[in-house]
């Protein structure tokens, strides 16, 4: 007979996607982000041709950028924009442009320097606007082109700072709501004082609680959350480590 070692079987679960709510009404305004929200709400009444939205991973930059994109109908630029003329054509027409995670893109693909410079100039000439998101300020970006450095330095910046308690709680509820997961208030109140005070930590926690409760067919209760919190502290998974270093969190 083939060897069949006795180990505890574990049911895997389907990776069913959920839809992240990206409406303006889904964005919780707090002290740490009200400046950035104000900029987006004021669009198109901007004094300059663009804005840099910066803040730590998972702070809501992409959400706010999506709100702005919805208002401005901006073209979302990704790495394909480097090989096609679509981005340049949009800039020449004065269409709004959105480029996310610009710090990471510049670090990984140096060709973005040239492309960004041309897009910015064309957009400005045509009276368009550009929104850039980044975890850091332009002074920390890997830029060799002095013209690009000076243009980025001159753009207005809006920071989303570290969250306060009220916002952390709102973000945790939003994470559960995005997953259409019903949880009790005492779970949220139990977890918040015991978890790292960051958006990525909250997202990872909700993600894992969702997954583990689905695999085990258990309700996401406070005792299950307690076990998970302990596990996450004792043994951060490879997946967690990868997510920690991943950009574009989609909070």
């Amino acid at each position, binding site marked *: *007979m083939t060897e069949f070692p006795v*180990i505890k079987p574990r049911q895997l679960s389907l990776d069913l996607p959920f839809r992240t709510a990206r409406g303006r009404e889904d964005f919780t305004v707090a002290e740490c982000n009200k400046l950035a929200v104000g900029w987006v709400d004021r669009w198109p009444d901007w004094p300059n041709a663009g804005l840099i939205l910066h803040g730590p991973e998972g702070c809501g930059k992409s959400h706010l950028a999506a709100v702005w994109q919805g208002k401005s109908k901006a073209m979302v630029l990704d790495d394909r924009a480097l090989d096609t003329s679509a981005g340049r054509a949009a800039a020449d027409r004065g269409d709004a442009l959105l480029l996310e995670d610009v710090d990471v893109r510049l670090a990984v693909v140096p060709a973005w320097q040239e492309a960004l410079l041309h897009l910015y100039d064309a957009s400005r000439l045509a009276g368009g606007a550009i929104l850039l998101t980044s975890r850091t300020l332009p002074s920390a970006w890997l830029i060799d082109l002095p013209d690009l450095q000076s243009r980025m330095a001159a753009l207005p910046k809006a920071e989303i700072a570290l969250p306060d308690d009220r916002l952390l709680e709102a973000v945790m509820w939003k994470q559960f709501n995005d997953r*259409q997961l019903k949880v009790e208030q005492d779970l949220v109140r139990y977890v918040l004082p015991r978890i790292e005070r960051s958006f990525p930590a909250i997202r990872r926690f909700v993600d894992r609680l969702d997954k583990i409760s689905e695999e085990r067919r258990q309700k996401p209760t406070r005792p299950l959350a307690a076990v998970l919190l302990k596990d996450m502290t004792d043994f951060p998974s490879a997946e967690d480590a990868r997510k920690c270093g991943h950009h574009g969190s989609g909070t």
Partner: protein
Amino acid sequence: MKISIERAALFRSLAHVQSVVERRNAIPILSNVLMQARGGMLKLNTTDMDTSIIDSVEAYVTMEGGTTAPAHTLYDIVRKLPDGAHVDITLEDGGNQISLRAGRSNFTLSCLPEDDFPTLQGDDLSHEFTIGADDLRAMIERTRFAISSEETRYYLNGIYWHAKEENGVKLMRAVATDGHRLARLEMPLPDGAEGMPGVIVPKKTVDTLYRLIAEDVTSVHVGLSEHKIRFAFDNIVLTSKLIDGTFPDYERVIPAGNDKTMAVETRLFREAVDRVSTISSEKSRAVKLVLAEGSLMLQAISPDAGSATEELEIAYSSSEMEIGFNSVYLLDIAKQIEGEEIKFELADSGSPTIIRDMSDDGALYVLMPMRV
């Protein structure tokens, strides 16, 4: 109100409508069936505020009127009356009670006024179409076993019913998943269903509907909007609220690149899984499939009960692999397969497996493995 009705006809209609009435109700009138006698018909209506069933039956109406009476009690009384009995129902005591007489049996039941009975409106339905009862039955049969019963994930507590166009072909799809397995059945889209919103029909409605159309029904008229659905057939109208949630983009969990295929005789596979799983542990119900060219070894082991293996001949020519599954899930799916052969499309031991009925292109099942 005063009516006379055949016991068999009344019993059949009460059986239809009483299933939606909960045994315990905080609101007393929800325990009652609304009875309205008008124009030679007795209309019976029950509701739990989420679902409503109306059934109309011919009756000899001496005096028109209406009232509500305890549904389960009335059903139990009529059930126990002898076949062929005639039942006389009369509203008495200024509308506070009904008397029910059949032969030498007499009953009085307390009533509540018909005006207090809540109605579940089913008008303003944006899409209406007719579907064959066999098609509707198949859509329920093939998918409902995969409905999640976990209330936390309320948006999975039903069958997702939606229209889909693929390669120029208009289809109607029924999908259910509990996060461990997924069942999808598709068929040509009925006329009139174009542009219908995707809706999640609650499990209770699905089960009630299945019970009701299991009789001699040939077609069902369906009306739906984003919030309600109505099924009408014979003299029955079932109206239900829909689950207010978003069904996940399930197509993203149906793998496209599973390149290892295994075909096995359905009956032999089902029986072998059933036998071997007798040994698997009560909690996990795990069985392991060891695939090699031309052969499948099913294995189960339990620290307490022992172990079991069984070998089957299969059509398989890819590299050897091992994969574990919950035997209950395997059997649930195998029971849906009507064709002689069942086909597995596999990738590896940690990825979703597709299972198909070789005789039915419209049915597809996705099953997540177990780490064993």
